[in-house]
């Protein structure tokens, strides 16, 4: 039973990985990675790593992949298949196609080396089925077991990981923020109708700073409205 499950999950893992590498559309690559991660969680379960499998599904296949989907939908980008790139017949001509072929060859050599190192090793335990396993509420791999390890023996690692997450969150916000908030923005017109209900001269930042002259109070033009909403909402709309 576990062998059948292993082969199904392993086929899912490898085909998901192949899909990530060869699919043309980045969105489909993300979906292939989700399938890969779910199959990998099955492999983790077979290895009795229940908590890690749950974290994999919830955090990786859930949260991180949602982030990917949003960025792919926002950025998009040109898709290309692996074969096209290897032959160098993309949109930009044969730039570095030899290097890419060399990269694939190097990765193949890496696979051979890894398989020799992992399977040709002298460790006899590699060919075994692992250490003994006694089921129970505090058995190997359960949340209680992992939590006890994380909060006693690996407490420093736990705290450092949380600091790392905080730094990465701040860094992500800083990197992706809008630079030069008063710049040209072609999406400002979409928000202009929302401002029509607001009386003119009711204290936007642009008016207070004197950037919009209050001369045309009687009949504000649409261009002024658009410029005003740009100033108001330019800071955080895309965050």
């Amino acid at each position, binding site marked *: 039973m576990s062998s059948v499950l292993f082969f199904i999950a392993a086929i899912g893992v*490898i085909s998901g990985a192949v899909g990530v590498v060869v699919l043309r559309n980045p969105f489909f690559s993300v979906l292939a990675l989700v399938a890969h991660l779910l199959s990998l969680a099955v492999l983790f379960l077979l290895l009795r790593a229940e908590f890690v499998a749950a*974290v994999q599904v919830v955090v990786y296949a859930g949260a991180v992949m949602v982030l990917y989907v949003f960025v792919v939908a926002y950025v998009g980008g040109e898709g290309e298949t692996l074969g096209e790139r290897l032959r160098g017949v993309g949109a930009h001509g044969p730039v570095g196609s030899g290097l890419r072929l060399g990269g*694939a060859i190097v990765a193949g050599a890496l696979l051979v080396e890894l398989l020799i190192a992992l399977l040709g090793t002298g460790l006899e335990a590699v060919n*075994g089925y692992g*250490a003994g396993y006694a089921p129970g509420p505090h058995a*190997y791999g359960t949340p209680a077991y*992992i939590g006890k390890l994380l909060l006693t023996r690996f407490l420093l690692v736990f705290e450092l990981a949380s600091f790392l997450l905080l730094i990465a969150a701040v860094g992500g916000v800083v990197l992706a923020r809008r630079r030069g908030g008063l710049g040209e923005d072609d999406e400002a017109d979409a928000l202009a109708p929302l401002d029509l209900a607001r009386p003119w001269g009711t204290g936007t930042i642009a008016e207070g700073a004197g950037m919009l002259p209050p001369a045309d109070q009687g009949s504000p033009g649409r261009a002024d409205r658009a410029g005003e909403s740009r100033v108001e909402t330019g800071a955080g709309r895309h965050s």
Partner: protein
Amino acid sequence: MSIAWYLAVSAIVFSLGAVGVMTRRNPLVVLLCLELMLNGGNLALIAFSRMWGNGDGQILAIVVMTVAACEVCIGLGMIVALYRRHLPIDTDELRELQG
């Protein structure tokens, strides 16, 4: 299944990720392939952890997942910043680091 099968799967996944990192041009897909490589490493860690019946490898796998999440956060932030500055989303075109 014996541990060696899991290690073989992890080696294959790692190598596929390496192929993707070295051959794809879209930085988004390069990040995805980086995730593949990290997942291959995670599978090997958990297989060795099972081999010894010791939880340290699982803790290390969780830490690797944390680092991967941080890397995704920073990498996607950089890609969004590239897009905002109207730079090409293409690793062939991005040859210089000057801002």
